[in-house]
């Protein structure tokens, strides 16, 4: 299965939920937000949200700024 993550196409060997995918990227749920196909997915739904072929996944966090 292929998804677009942060503008790059990546291949996933297994079917993953959004929560599993976030963790697989070395990120914790804290302090991040995720959007799939430009729609924000609330954290409470991550464990049930199954990624599918072709989905565009973006993960955001807070960085320094004025």
């Amino acid at each position: 299965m292929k998804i677009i993550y942060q503008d790059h196409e990546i291949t996933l060997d297994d079917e993953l939920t959004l929560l599993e995918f976030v963790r697989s990227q070395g990120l914790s749920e804290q302090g991040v937000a995720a959007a799939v196909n430009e729609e924000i997915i609330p954290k409470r739904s991550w464990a049930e949200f199954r990624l599918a072929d072709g989905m565009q996944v973006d993960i955001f966090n807070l960085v320094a700024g004025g």
Partner: protein
Amino acid sequence: MLKLAGREFNSHLIVGTGKYASGEQLVQACLASGAQIATMAVKRVDTEHHTDEIVKPLLEIGVQLMPNTSGAKNAREAVFAAKLAREALEVDWIKVEVHPDVKYLLPDPLETYAACKELIKDGFKVFPYIPADPVLCRRLEDLGVSAVMPLGSPIGSARGLETLGMLKIIIAESHVPVIIDAGIGCPSDAVKAFELGADACMVNTAIAAAGDKILMAKAFNLAQQAGRLAYEAGLAGQSETASPTSPLEAFLKEAMQ
């Protein structure tokens, strides 16, 4: 005491977190400044470059987080950024910044207004970064913003309060707190803003790009104390002519008689 969106703060300074060399340096500067509110930006996770964690250390020193929508080119993007920030931080404060022009980073008032309208409906505490326009401030106030953040001069320009005349009107007429944002280049700019009656000043580059950032943060801390005290004391009035501070009797002539 600074009151913003139902919270009270001892410091009237808000600091931006950009341009620091490390998270540790940022935290030390923040502590030295005495600021209890700090801004930050929402961005896609950078998978290739390491960036220091800033949220956790700021929360540990008790700072209120004020995420911004910097990078948004229109209202739609600003609303998206605000919702991402709320989802990530579980904080409903948002500094709305919409500046499509990268040369001067001047805020787009129409897109900013539209974003504020939608975000207020969605329950956000909204702090818009705006041109120093008293009419726009009034319109935003009517929408229900938590404060207005008019600019002194372009972001990072260190040109101080170039919009002084308009800032005076905004401060005089506003029913919501006025936070002077952008362009404050030195502590005396902040003192001036506070003497005029500004409720808060937002400072980033002036501290983060100073030679000794910690020392400059302390200077701004003292500036906000001096400026606010002066405002609360009430400034002595100005006049075109002199007003004597010593007795003017011709004491010598009288003594010689």
